[in-house]
């Protein structure tokens, strides 16, 4: 059904679902840290921004138009950022981790905002799809009414990458490395007494997480056509946290479901009320209090009980 989606649903909905898929990739990355390593990051917007701005800057200053090159460049930048921020954030307690990630993503926001001669400031940088090429130049979008074609092609492109990411992340969390992360989450002391160098593994997790979320940012920006400092601003990090909690961060598919669901909720809710953030906050509080396993987690539990 996913494969036939564009034909069935039309351009608007395809675009919406594509947004959802990019957010799902971000959620996968985020949850490696929260669900599997026990680290709550309030600054993942930093990676969305790193990915998105890499694309925009490469297009603007280096004249790049190949999506593959964007992905390469953006992933390298996100990895570098994660490596650097990781060194600062993971060496300490989990509370400091939360504090530092929030703070450092805000630092990036102020930089994007203030160095406006490079980043375009609040106006941002445009990333028009007409200048984009997929599959090494095979697919291009010239012409005035190329938009529907772009949306359809891009949807399949993102869907493919989403599948790759999901499989990759599944392998990672089920691997010995993934088990080690979970051990660190469950009992840091014991893991240490097995000879595991705690901060090093957290750093690896942070690196992988940053790359996945960076990729999400890279894929998101051509859809949006524009990148502004807003992508780095703290509510973006808050949204990522929200998807994971909504879907349930203690299982693999929860954040994916949460991201896609949130994507739709946001579109409809923003049309209905201007107090979207309050609603989000209240829902978050309610979720954490009454439904900590999230939607998927609770469904799984319910399923187990009914058996």
């Amino acid at each position, binding site marked *: 059904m996913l494969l036939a989606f564009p034909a069935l649903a039309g351009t608007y909905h395809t675009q919406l679902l594509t947004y959802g898929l990019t957010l799902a990739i971000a959620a996968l990355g985020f949850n490696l840290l929260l669900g599997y390593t026990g680290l709550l990051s309030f600054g993942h917007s930093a990676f969305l921004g790193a990915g998105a701005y890499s694309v925009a800057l490469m297009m603007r200053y280096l004249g790049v138009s190949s999506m593959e090159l964007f992905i390469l460049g953006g992933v390298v930048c996100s990895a570098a950022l994660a490596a650097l921020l990781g060194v600062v954030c993971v060496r300490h307690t989990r509370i400091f981790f939360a504090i530092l990630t929030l703070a450092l993503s805000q630092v990036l926001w102020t930089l994007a905002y203030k160095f406006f001669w490079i980043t375009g400031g609040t106006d941002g940088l445009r990333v028009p799809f007409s200048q984009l090429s997929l599959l090494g130049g095979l697919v291009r979008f010239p012409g005035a009414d190329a938009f529907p074609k772009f949306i359809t092609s891009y949807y399949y492109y993102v869907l493919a990458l989403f599948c790759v990411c999901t499989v990759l992340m599944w*392998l990672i969390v*089920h*691997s*010995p490395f993934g*088990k080690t992360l979970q051990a660190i989450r*469950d009992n840091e002391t*014991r893991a240490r007494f*097995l*000879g595991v160098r705690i901060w090093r593994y957290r750093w690896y997790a942070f690196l992988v997480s940053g790359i996945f979320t960076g990729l999400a940012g890279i894929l998101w920006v051509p859809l949006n056509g524009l990148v502004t400092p807003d992508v780095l601003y703290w509510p973006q990090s808050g949204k990522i946290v929200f998807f994971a909690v909504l879907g349930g961060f203690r299982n693999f598919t929860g954040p994916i479901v949460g991201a896609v669901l949130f994507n739709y909720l946001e579109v409809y809710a923003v049309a209905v009320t201007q107090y979207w953030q309050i609603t989000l906050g209240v829902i978050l509080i309610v979720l954490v209090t009454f439904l900590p396993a999230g939607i998927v987690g609770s469904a799984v539990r319910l399923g187990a009980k009914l058996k």
Partner: protein
Amino acid sequence: MTLLRTQALKKHFGDTRAVDGVDFVVNEGEFLSLVGTNGAGKTTLVNLISAFLLPDSGKIFIGDRDITHAPVHQRIRAGIARSFQLVNLFDDLSVLDNVALSIFAREGKTRRFLAPAERDAAVTQEASGLLEQFGIGAKAQATARDLAQGERKLLDVAVAYALRPKLLFLDEPTSGVSTRDKAQIMDTVSSVVRGGGITAVVIEHDMDVVFKYSDRVVVMHEGRFLADGPPEEIRRNSDVAKYLLGTDV
């Protein structure tokens, strides 16, 4: 051969002399008990050796290697492992995973990130085998959190044992379990550990357990060694009787 040697090891907490000049020698192949009243310093001594704490003064040697200031992971590499008095497990992982993790850590395989852990047949087999030896093989797929207290204690020891250390410290492996379970646990632990040829130091309060299972008994009192020798000798020692057993011989 001397496996472990401490030299004038000291650790004070303010006025409390938890470990007050201890020369502790452990030889390969021994199964010894470390006993003493509460606050005698047993746990502190083990904490110092396993890098949970750093000493105020003194030295610790594994073989010829000075590990006094070595961080935890280096001591593990040197061959020390420990279990914990208050059970310390990876509660949300399966019983099998708990032990498998030790093996992955030991084998340096914890960085492998692209193949599922279950696929590593060698590790899975070794882990299952170990669980069988410890008598909890039937619970391999259960979540660690869901085990009974006695089983959790056994798992705690198994996780430490899976590191195949040279020297294994067991911190009160029978505390918090019923008398009947105690015997069963010690039987299992003792036979597995001795069967594996691993040198063990067991902190224990229950003197019956101590006398039944150990080759050698070391008695601590107020941070120092009071007596050190085979069980019969310790039993006859009047100082020990006075301080530890509360009787006048």
